[in-house]
């Protein structure tokens, strides 16, 4: 008797769940999505920039070749965007894509394979004077060709497990070949894409406005009439905007304290989505400034940091959480904690580490009370708390560190120009994949995103070896060797903590999922506003 009742109950549960899921999935058209962005775009060029300040307000204007499926809550499934289909050769060295018909730029010209080729040439083989932040991730790519209007062919120097992931980068906006030919810098200051929304205006210091693209190639999309990305720097003002229901969300992430505030104030009018975050704060040590050219000094800096206490303390007040190496903890290429503890700065005995740090500083001729400035990004979370923590840690080995906060729009200029001694940098990925997570740390001559300004051919070699490895075990070994050289032996770049993502949004927001990356799901064509 009990068994049929249980089956009936289960059936009813499934039906109720399906009907509520169906209700959830019946999108409503119209409305303007207002969201806050804590930073302004340094430029509109996704190929050049690395900040959500560009991604969040600008991504809705562009299409990609491939993309992370916005309906996949794990943020890992790759699907076509302007690519209709693709084939991979048997030797895994040729990727051929068929481009959809009927796609037009907002300016009116049709999109062809030539535009895709020009965009990828701009990313992988940028002309002299054009910065491409992620070009170092594409070392395996030998050429891009467009044999006809609907076909794009990528040829690789060696088989790369990361090839499709690299071609699904949310940064790889498809630009017009004609515009790039006329001026390779045009897209830094202008917008013309094929995305679901058309650029209306950018009022500096205020907002970016986008309206529905009536010629968008996905039928029936987008659902929204438009969006307004409002720039609000102060975290308190961002929260106040959501709390006052003047903004629907902020797509980057909020702190546990802010979550608590919104929960109390809005009750069931607010929803939260959480995820581990494929982002880490790194400490960039400028190898061109003395005494930081000495690896003993860099090792001393990393040995002074108690990362385990940092995790316990800062996870309560900001968006950082896990102690990590070069990969998101728990993922297949991540170093297990027991092994991680053997690296400089990860040991559990912090007093022993700090004694070694003091010895190294003395040996390098760095006097007690040596002063330097930590340049930090003027974004409250997690930069400021992480900066305060680091300054205290370095004070404990006799260093006198002051902090200078740099406006977000000027921050990359400072890093790229090498106008710093020590700076708080970051590396965020859109998929957990060693090629994507490690390219930044190759030599400065290879990676435009290496702001520590070092040359290390041995490290570059390890990067290539892990990228080419077809055997998973071998790839793990190369990733570990890369990690050891980067953060321990040479201490080129120093790790802090992995971030944890909490998104708060008003209950009206539908069709958007949190993922481990704040760079994906930002085209917004699946988003709609309910009651």
């Amino acid at each position, binding site marked *: 008797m009990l068994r049929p009742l249980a089956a009936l109950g289960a059936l009813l549960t499934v039906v109720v769940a399906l009907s509520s899921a169906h209700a959830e999935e019946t999108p409503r058209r119209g409305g303007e999505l207002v969201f806050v962005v804590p930073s302004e775009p340094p430029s509109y060029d996704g190929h050049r920039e690395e900040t959500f300040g560009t991604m969040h307000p600008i991504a809705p204007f562009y299409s990609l070749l491939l993309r992370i499926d916005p309906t996949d809550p794990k943020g890992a499934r790759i699907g076509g965007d302007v690519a209709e289909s693709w084939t991979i050769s048997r030797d895994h060295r040729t990727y051929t894509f068929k481009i959809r018909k009927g796609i037009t730029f907002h300016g009116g010209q049709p999109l062809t394979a030539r535009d895709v080729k020009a965009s990828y040439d701009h990313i992988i083989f940028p002309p002299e004077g054009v910065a491409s932040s992620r070009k170092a991730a594409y070392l395996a790519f030998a050429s891009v060709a467009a044999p006809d209007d609907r076909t794009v062919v990528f040829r690789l120097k060696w088989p790369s497990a990361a090839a499709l992931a690299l071609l699904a980068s949310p940064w790889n906006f498809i630009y017009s070949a004609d515009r790039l030919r006329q001026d390779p810098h045009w897209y830094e200051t202008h917008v013309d894409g094929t995305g679901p929304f058309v650029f209306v205006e950018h009022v500096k210091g205020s907002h970016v406005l986008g309206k529905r693209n009536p010629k968008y190639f996905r039928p029936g999309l987008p659902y929204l009439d438009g969006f307004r990305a409002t720039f609000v720097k102060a975290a308190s003002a961002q929260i106040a905007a959501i709390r006052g229901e003047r903004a629907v969300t902020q797509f980057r992430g909020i702190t546990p304290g802010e979550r608590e*505030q919104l929960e109390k104030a809005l009750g069931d009018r607010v929803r939260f989505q959480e995820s581990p975050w494929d982002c880490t704060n790194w400490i960039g040590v400028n190898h061109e400034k003395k005494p930081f050219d000495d690896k003993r000094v860099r090792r001393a800096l990393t040995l002074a940091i108690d990362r385990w206490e940092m995790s316990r303390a800062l996870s309560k007040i900001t968006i950082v959480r896990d102690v990590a190496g070069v990969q998101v903890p728990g993922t297949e290429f991540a170093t297990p904690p027991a092994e991680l503890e053997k690296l400089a700065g990860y040991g559990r005995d912090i007093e022993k580490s700090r004694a070694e740090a003091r010895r190294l500083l003395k040996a390098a001729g760095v006097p007690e009370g040596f002063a330097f400035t930590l340049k930090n990004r003027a974004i409250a979370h997690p930069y400021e708390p992480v900066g305060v923590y680091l300054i205290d840690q370095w004070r404990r080995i006799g260093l006198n560190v002051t902090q200078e906060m740099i406006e977000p729009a000027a921050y990359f200029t400072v890093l790229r120009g090498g106008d710093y001694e020590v700076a708080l940098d970051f590396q965020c990925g859109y998929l957990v994949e060693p090629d994507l997570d490690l390219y930044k740390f190759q030599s400065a001559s290879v990676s435009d995103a290496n702001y520590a300004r070092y040359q290390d051919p041995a490290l570059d070699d390890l990067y290539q070896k892990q990228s080419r490895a077809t055997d998973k075990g071998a790839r793990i070994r190369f990733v570990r060797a890369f990690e050891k050289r980067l953060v321990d032996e040479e201490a080129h770049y120093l790790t802090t903590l992995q971030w944890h993502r909490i998104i708060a949004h008003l209950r009206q927001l539908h069709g958007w999922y949190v993922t481990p990356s704040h760079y994906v799901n930002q085209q917004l064509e699946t988003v709609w506003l309910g009651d």
Partner: protein
Amino acid sequence: MTAAGGAVPLEEAAPARRAGWRETARDFARRRPLGAAGAAVIGLMALVAAAAPVLAPYDPLAPDYGAMLARPDAAHWLGTDAFGRDVLSRLVYGPRTALTVGLVAALVGATVGAVIGVASAYFGGAVDLLVERVMDVFLSFPLIILALAVVAVLGHGVGNVVLAITVPMIPRCGRVIRSSALAIRRAAYVDAARAAGFSRRRIILRHMLPNVMAPYLIMLTAFMGQAILLETSLSFLGLGVAEPTPAWGLMLKGAAVDFAETAPWLALAPGLAISLAVFAFNLFGDSLRDALDPRLRTQ
């Protein structure tokens, strides 16, 4: 010896003895008790700033991650902040930043403004016209907007914050001092100095400037309060001094806002300290103006 007839005794005919500073202070306190209270608070702030290492129960920079956001109790009278730093200790060190920035900015701003104001009044004509129009341009911006613009151009840091606060104060002081100096310019002793062949610099600095000391001092005290408020405002906006420096404006931002509901003590103490400091400077400045203004002196 007694004076004969209606003759005035020699002692009485001698000029009146100048009152000492103690006597002046006592007289000021008796006549203007509110101003004296303001001065006392300012004095106390200066004393606290100087004796901070002795008065503060903890190192203001030392975090205690076992006591983050602790409520006020016997160990931490004003609680702790998000890093477990003692709020009282940071409050005690706070005036160092506020007073240093306030004093330097007000002193430099008022002095440069006074020199420009006197020089403008002395030269008159095209020089006066040009200087005043430049002043008009600066005066057309609200104090905070001009300070924000200076920080935006020069960047953050204590030096730039001082400059950011100083620049808007120069035209404000210059305008007031100029009006006083215009009257002095026509005084007989200035004409006499000119006739004696003294240089313009000497006339401005030695003969005119000392005679605008009363409005200068009033402006100086008024600016101190404004400068402290500006410094805390810039720090609150993240444009002033940076963490972990103990500064009242900084104590009001960040965690004080994030945890305003669960840890109100983070904002309460620095907020009260800023209000009290600005109130004290305003009280003192107003009383000083009353004391030095001949029209109000008899009231």
